[in-house]
């Protein structure tokens, strides 16, 4: 019972309600903008006018993804990286920059999420509205009938006060389970948002390891992982397997060297003088 009632006092239940209600307009807007702009941009590429349209679309997608990250984090407590995803470097030619922008996995994940937001938004909005109706309809019906408004369920017309109480137990039931359903949907939405928008890419992992080793000089993998979590945030994509793989990758390219001290492996940057030290 406390499992059911606990959802009432959970801030995320109300966050999930707001997130679900906002999902439909945001989903429609995002889907329309992405599909229309891509169709227009790709169609016009042959005249070169399509390139600025596509670039503007990507910039808009990033802005929308940033807003989505904040929404999911603040309303659903979804895990999101502490700092925004690394953008392609501003060095190199304009075309290189453009190519980086199009080839970045993060860009396509953001586009995927914005497209997915429409079907998810429809489901979320339907759940929220149906639950509100079921939770409060039974209480509103006697009042409506008393002021002369008839209700109808199928072919049954409810126009007397005793009839109007029929719906009350159903509303009581949904008043109990409704918040829990909303909370559950919020968790599903939050995890979806994290899996698309909360991914820390390999370059950021490598940068976090390098920064940690610059600061500490030498560290074992446990300290490196906790430093990564501190810098990048506690997100599912920052985990022990990825930390181990990042260290292996840096070791194989010669940027990091490792040596065993008993049962632990210590890592340090290959340079004698770590970066940032004079």
């Amino acid at each position: 019972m406390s499992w059911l009632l606990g959802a009432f006092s959970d801030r995320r239940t109300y966050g999930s309600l707001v997130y679900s209600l906002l999902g439909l307009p945001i989903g429609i807007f995002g889907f329309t903008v992405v599909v229309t702009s891509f169709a227009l941009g790709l169609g016009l590429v042959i005249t070169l006018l399509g390139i600025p349209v596509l670039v503007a679309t990507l910039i808009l997608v990033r802005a929308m993804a940033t807003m989505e990250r904040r929404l999911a984090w603040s309303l659903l407590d979804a895990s999101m990286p502490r700092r925004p995803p690394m953008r392609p470097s501003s060095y190199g030619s304009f075309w290189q920059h453009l190519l980086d922008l199009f080839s970045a996995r993060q860009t396509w994940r953001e586009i995927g999420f914005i497209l997915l937001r429409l079907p998810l938004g429809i489901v979320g909005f339907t759940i929220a509205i149906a639950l509100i109706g079921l939770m409060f309809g039974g209480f509103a019906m006697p009042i409506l009938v008393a002021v002369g408004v008839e209700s109808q369920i199928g072919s049954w017309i409810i126009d007397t006060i005793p009839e109007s109480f029929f719906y009350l137990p159903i509303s009581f039931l949904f008043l109990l389970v409704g918040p829990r359903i909303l909370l559950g949907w919020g968790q599903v939405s939050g995890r979806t948002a994290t899996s698309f928008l909360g991914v820390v890419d390999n370059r950021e992992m490598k940068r976090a390891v390098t920064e940690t080793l610059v600061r500490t000089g030498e560290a074992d993998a446990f300290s490196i992982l906790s430093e990564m979590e501190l810098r990048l945030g506690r997100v599912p994509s920052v985990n022990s397997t990825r930390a181990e793989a990042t260290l292996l990758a840096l070791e194989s390219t010669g940027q990091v060297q490792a040596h065993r001290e008993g049962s632990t492996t210590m890592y340090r940057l290959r340079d004698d003088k770590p970066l940032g030290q004079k």
Partner: protein
Amino acid sequence: MDEFSKMAAREREANRIARRQWFWLHFAVYLTTQVFLVITWALGDSTFPWYVYPLFGWGIFIAAHAVYAFVVKTPEEIMIERESRTSEGRG
């Protein structure tokens, strides 16, 4: 294999077990629903086997989930496994 690698391997194994458990839960829900639909079809007067639509439609997702739970590995997992095989070979 150092302490951290052992912990990472344990975490990978725990994730693998969780992924498989979620698959079996999904499969149980799928199976129960399909049995219910087939019974509904058998008791009704419809001759057209309409239950095949959810059976195959949802079946695609069940197949995809099975691949994810039992076959798919992340690039990091593949890399670590290769590396440990190489170091075992060296040892």
